[in-house]
C-alpha cells in the first residue's frame, strides 16, 4: 500500500464522496486531512489539524480515489499524532472504545446515567445497546446434504449485545446443511475500531491476535463466515494487505445465504408478505470492501415486497462514533437523510442492514425495526413454518 501514500493528484473526488463533508461545515475533508497533511508531515513533522477526529473512517474516500491513495488510513495516522487534542477523558474513553471486545466483556451497557455520559464524553441523546438474549429455536432438519463446516466469526458487538443474532445465523446455517463452529472462542477484535479511533499500532496488534486465534481455531473449517460488514471488510480485505492472510476463504453471511438450498427459498415464498416497503442499507465499510446491491438481491430473493436501497452512503453510526458527545450533531445529521427517506417512502415495514451498531443508530433515528439479514430471514422462515409471530397473531 505504501507506494500509493504519496500519489494524490488533487482531483478531489474523495471530498465529493465524504459523508461528513456533506453535513459538517467545519470538517476540512479527506484530501486536506489525508494526503495533503501527509505531504506536509513528511516535509516537517509536527503540525496536526483540527477536526481530524471528526472522520468516521468509513473509507468511502478511498473507494473513490482513482490512484488508490489510502486516504482514510492516512487520516488514521494523522489522528494518532493528534490524540492530545482529545483531552484526557476522551482519550481514556477512546482507548476503551478501541477495544470493543473488552467493552463487550465488561460493560453490559443498556442504560447509562446522564452523569456518566457527561463525565465520559458520551452522547446524551443516543441509545446504547442492551443485551438481546431471546431464545432461538432450531429450524428443523437440514434441507441439504452436508455442505461442510462453517467457522462463524462473532463480531465484538453481536457477541456481547446480540447473541440472539449469532444463534439465529447459526440455526440458518445448520438448516442449509452446514456444521457451525462459533469463533473465536474467547473475545477478540479485528482492529477496525482501533483504526477508526486513530490507533493504527493497536489495530495491528489486535488484528494479529485475532488472526492467530482464527488460524488456530479455524482448523477443520471449510470457510469463515462473517456477520458484520465492518469486520468482514477488515478481515477479508485489510488483513490480506497487512500480512494477516488466512488460508481459509472468508465470506459474508449474506453471500452464503444466497446459496441456501432451493427448498429454503420455496418455503419462504409459499407465504407472501403483506404489501409494504422494505429498505436495505449496506454499511459504508461494506460498500467499500465489497460493493452494494447484495442485500437488495437477498431481500428480493427472500420475497420481501417492494425492497429499495437506502440512498445515504453512511448512516453516521460509524462503530462507536455516534456514541461520542462531540459527534452527536454529525451522526444525527447523517441519519437524518435516512429518516427523510423513510418519511418519503411511506410505511416502511423494516430495514435490513449488515451491522449491529448501524442497526441501533438507524432504528433510533427512524423508529423502524432495523436488523441484520439473518434476523429477518430467521423470522420469516419461522413464520413460514407456522411458528413465527405473524402466525401467532393469526391464531390469536
Amino acid at each position, binding site marked *: 500500500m505504501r507506494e500509493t501514500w504519496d500519489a494524490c493528484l488533487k482531483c478531489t473526488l474523495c471530498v465529493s464522496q465524504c459523508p461528513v463533508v456533506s453535513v459538517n461545515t467545519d470538517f476540512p475533508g479527506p484530501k486536506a486531512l489525508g494526503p495533503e497533511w501527509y505531504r506536509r508531515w513528511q516535509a516537517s513533522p509536527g503540525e496536526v489539524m483540527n477536526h481530524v477526529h471528526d472522520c468516521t473512517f468509513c473509507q468511502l474516500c478511498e473507494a473513490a480515489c482513482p490512484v*488508490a491513495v489510502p486516504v482514510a488510513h492516512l487520516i488514521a495516522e494523522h489522528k494518532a499524532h493528534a490524540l492530545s487534542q482529545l483531552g484526557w477523558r476522551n482519550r481514556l474513553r477512546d482507548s476503551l472504545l478501541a477495544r470493543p471486545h473488552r467493552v463487550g466483556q465488561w460493560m453490559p451497557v443498556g442504560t447509562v446515567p446522564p452523569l456518566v455520559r457527561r463525565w465520559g464524553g458520551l452522547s446524551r441523546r443516543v441509545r446504547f445497546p442492551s443485551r438481546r438474549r431471546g431464545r432461538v429455536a432450531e429450524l428443523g432438519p437440514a434441507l441439504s446434504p452436508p455442505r461442510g463446516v462453517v467457522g462463524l466469526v462473532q463480531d465484538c458487538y453481536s457477541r456481547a449485545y446480540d447473541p440472539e443474532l449469532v444463534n439465529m445465523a447459526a440455526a440458518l446455517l445448520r438448516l442449509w446443511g452446514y456444521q457451525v463452529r462459533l469463533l473465536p472462542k474467547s473475545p477478540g477484535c479485528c482492529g477496525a475500531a482501533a483504526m477508526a479511533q486513530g490507533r493504527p499500532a493497536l489495530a495491528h496488534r489486535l488484528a494479529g491476535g485475532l488472526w492467530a486465534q482464527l488460524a488456530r481455531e479455524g482448523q477443520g473449517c471449510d470457510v469463515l463466515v462473517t456477520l458484520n460488514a465492518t469486520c468482514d471488510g477488515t478481515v477479508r480485505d485489510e488483513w490480506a494487505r497487512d500480512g494477516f492472510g488466512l488460508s481459509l476463504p472468508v465470506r459474508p453471511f449474506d453471500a452464503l445465504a444466497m446459496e441456501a438450498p432451493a427448498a429454503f427459498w420455496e418455503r419462504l415464498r409459499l407465504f407472501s408478505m403483506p404489501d409494504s416497503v422494505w429498505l436495505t442499507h449496506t454499511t459504508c465499510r461494506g460498500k467499500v470492501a465489497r460493493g*452494494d446491491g447484495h442485500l437488495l438481491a437477498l431481500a428480493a430473493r427472500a420475497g420481501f415486497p417492494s425492497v429499495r436501497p437506502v440512498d445515504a452512503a453512511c448512516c453516521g453510526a460509524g462503530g462507536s462514533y455516534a456514541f461520542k458527545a462531540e459527534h452527536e450533531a454529525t451522526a444525527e445529521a447523517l441519519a437524518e437523510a435516512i429518516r427523510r427517506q423513510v418519511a418519503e417512502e411511506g410505511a416502511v415495514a423494516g430495514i435490513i442492514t449488515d451491522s449491529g451498531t448501524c442497526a441501533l443508530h438507524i432504528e433510533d433515528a427512524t423508529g423502524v425495526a432495523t436488523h441484520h439479514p439473518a434476523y429477518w430471514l430467521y423470522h420469516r422462515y419461522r413464520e413460514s413454518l407456522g411458528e413465527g409471530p405473524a402466525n401467532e397473531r393469526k391464531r390469536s
Partner: protein
Amino acid sequence: MGTLKQIIVVGRGPAGLYLSTLALAQGVGVTVIADGLGSCALWGGHWDFVSRDEQGHVVQDPWRWWEGRPPVPEADPVPRSVWRAWWQDLARFWRQLGIVPDHEPPRTNRWLVTPVGTVRPVFLAPQWHWAEEEPRPVTLVGFHHFIDFPVEVAAQNYQQETGCRAEVLVLPHPPLWTPAWQPLQWAWYFDTDPGREWLKDALRAASAPASLPLVFPQILGVDRVDAVFSAIQAALGVAVGEIPLTPPSVGGLRVQRRWERWLRRRGLRLWSAHAVRATATSVELEDGRMLTADAVVLATGGILGGGIQVAVNGAATDPLTGVDLGQATTPRDLGRLGYPRPEMAVPVVGRQVGGRDCDRQGMGGAMILWSGRRVWRHLEAAVGEEAPSRHEGNVGRLS
C-alpha cells in the same frame, strides 16, 4: 445461442453508467466492478456532441459537423436521425432523473458561461447550467472570498466577449463559513434549510437589478438544488442559472448521485474491486476471485481512468486484456489512444475507445453514446437476440 441475462461492466464512470442503464432498461442484470469513482463528478454534467473541429475552431452546428464523419476511422458515419434518436432517448431518461428540462435534444450547440466569463459551446446540459442559444444581459453573482469564481473579472470578460451587459452582485458569506470552504462545502450548505433561507435573505438584502437573470457559480445545492432554484425564483421572480466551475464539479456530482440512485433501485450490483484480467465472459479480481457472465464490457476510461497503461517507450496496452493499443510518440497522441473499434476482443465503451481526442474536441458525451449503443447492439446480436432491423438507433429505449 442463449439470451443475454447478466453482464459485467468494469468501470463506474459515465460510460459504465450509460451501458448499465441500457442493459437494465432491457431487463438484463448488471454487475459493475470498479476500483474508483470514475470521472462523472469531475465534469459539469453536460454531455458534449462536438464543440471544436480538428483545428480547434468552435462548432456551432454539431449535427451538420457529424454528417459523413465516422466516430472512429473504421466505423460508418452515423445518420442524423440515429444520433437524434439516441440523444432524444438520453434526454428523456435524464428528464426522468430530473436532470434536463426538455426531452428534445438542442438544435445547435448553446453557449455556456465559464468561471472566467468567456463562453464555450455546450450540447445536452442540465437545467442548472446557464446555457443559452444567444448570450444575453445577466447579473453575475459572487460571494465574498469565493475565489473559484472571480466575479468582477468574469463580468468584464463576458461583456467583452458577448457584447452583452453583465451586472455584478457580490453577496457576503454565510455565518458558518470558514476560509477552508471549497465549492462543495458551499453546495452542501445550500442543501440545508438554513442555507437556503440565508441565501434568500442575502439576495433580498442585496437588491439585485430587477429583471436580469441571476447567474451563480455552480454551488446552489447538491441533492436539493431544485428547491434552491425554486426558492430564489419565488423570492425574486427572475430566471436563475449556474456556471459550472473547474473540476471537481458539483453539477457532475448531482448527475452521478441521481443516476446511481436510479441504477441501484433497479437492482444494479456494484463490486468495489480491482480487476486484473478480463475476457469476453469473465473477470478476474486482484484477490483471485473470478466472476463470469454472459458478456463483459470494459468502461475503464482509457489512460485517465486506468484502462490503458503506457510504458516509458510509449507502448500502450490494456492491462486487463493485454491487447496492444499502439504507440504514443508525442503527448498529443495520448488523447487518441484506445481501441480502434469498440467491439474487439472484449467490448469497450467510453474513453477506452481510441481514434478521437474527446477532450480537445469536446465530444466525450457523443463518444459514450455511440460506443455504448454500438456495443449494446453487438452484445444482443452475439447472443442471438433478434438483431435490430436497420441501425443501432433502433435498440430499445431507456425510458
